[in-house]
């Protein structure tokens, strides 16, 4: 199903640009949910030996976690912690989007380099995986609000998930679920930390953590 994969590729790229260009945290969380669900479908599509129970289970768990549980946790956190509703970037939205375009071009180049070694992997998804990782990192370093940094972490996780899904032939189910569980726990721990930060300082500004230095 190359057409479906191309659609996922394009819409997935656009969600990244939407994350880079949106100032509202609520909208960012919804874009993240869409992106998570889209890329969860990748292993189902790219799997060579048909739909095994293993693949379906993995995709189902991913959709449930990234499409429903994470957004619910993040939206709940946003409502509870009473943040500013804006993302508060260090780097402006226009500059962020321009970075995204450059990152897309660079990921394309990197994917070209990598593809001979991983010839089984669909090229578009390889590129998307590298792009997702770079955008996730960029969101973490360029935004002040701790909640959007969690979103950046999850974008990065999406990238790593796609990379794993297309390159590694056979991963034991246990390992894949272990990674998912790790992400799940990480989001919870980060959520609790953000809640405490915002209660302490009245905002979730990561800059304020500097004042804790003794």
């Amino acid at each position, binding site marked *: 199903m190359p*057409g479906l994969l191309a659609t996922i590729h394009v819409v997935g790229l656009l969600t990244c640009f939407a994350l880079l260009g949106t100032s509202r945290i609520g909208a960012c969380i919804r874009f993240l949910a869409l992106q998570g669900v889209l890329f969860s479908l990748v292993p189902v599509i790219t799997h060579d030996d048909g739909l095994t129970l293993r693949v379906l289970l993995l995709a189902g768990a991913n959709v449930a976690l990234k499409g429903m549980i994470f957004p619910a946790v993040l939206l709940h956190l946003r409502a509870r912690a009473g943040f500013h509703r804006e993302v508060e970037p260090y780097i402006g939205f226009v500059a962020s989007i321009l970075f995204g375009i450059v990152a*897309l071009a660079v990921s394309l180049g990197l994917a070209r380099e990598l593809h001979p070694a991983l010839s089984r992997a669909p090229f578009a998804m390889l590129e998307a995986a590298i792009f997702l990782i770079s955008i996730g990192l960029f969101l973490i370093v360029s935004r002040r609000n701790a909640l959007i940094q969690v979103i950046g972490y999850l974008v990065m996780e999406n990238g790593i998930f796609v990379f794993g899904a297309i390159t590694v032939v056979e991963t034991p189910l246990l390992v894949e679920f272990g990674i998912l569980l790790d992400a799940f726990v990480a989001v919870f721990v980060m959520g609790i930390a953000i809640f405490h930060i915002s209660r302490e300082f009245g905002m979730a500004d990561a800059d304020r953590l500097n004042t804790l230095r003794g």
Partner: protein
Amino acid sequence: MHPQNLVAPVLGLLLAPLLVGVINRTKALVAGRRGPPLVQPYRDAWKLFRRGAVYGEVTTALVRLGPVLNLATLIMAMLVVPFPGTGAAISFTGDLVVLVGLFALGRFSTVLAALDTGSSFEGMGASREVYFAALAEPALLIALATLTRVTHATDLAAIYGAIVIDTWSHALPALALVGVSFLVLELVENSRIPVDDPTTHLELTMIHEVMVLDHTGPDLGLIQYGAALKLWVIGTLLIGLAPLHGVDPWVAGVAGLSGMAVLAVVIGMIESAMARYRMTTVPQFIVGAATLSAVAFIVLLV
């Protein structure tokens, strides 16, 4: 040049103001008013052309030149862009770059005329216009480059002639992104609502309109007619993406004209449904359009 290829530009020259009429009518209907008649833009133009022009004491010939040059570039652009069902009147390799250049020249003449009036408001408008144009121009160029890549052709007539159903099926994401990008550019380049409000009365919030405040009579008529032509030309770029090549020319032409009407209604709906963006958000909107084109281009490289 075939004579039948001149039909579309002539039709465009005649029908372009109607597009503005349809937009205004749609906005009025959505707002629950009856609205001006569809031919109101023609009546306005007729009224303005019969009037005399007033020029400020500090102005030079640039003020008179601006509207004429702007209109001339847009008529040229109309000759280069093919309409569904016919070819372009003039076609040569690389005419898509010329199209972008013509838009830039028209804008340059308007900006010079605005600066020449010596009004600080018009200087402010000129500064904004050029800033936003600097962002919109790459979007248009990259979108056209994407089309070049999809169709393996280097002039607009060949590009639009090569878009058939098969093209859409193998380059669906890229063409869809280019289409959305053209729609955004139609709003940006013609100062429609999410970017600029053509009917605003507050000079401080204006972008394009503030540049033409000092133009009167026939000059203003030329500017308003030019605005309608620009709406038509960029609309043609968007409508031409429909896979109408190979269809009977009459059917394609009628489909193209109805497409333009639908486009005008869509613009009217967008204007009714959306509020103007803050001035600081406008660059984000335009860069968004450039991003769509760039993603379309890069997706093709995959």
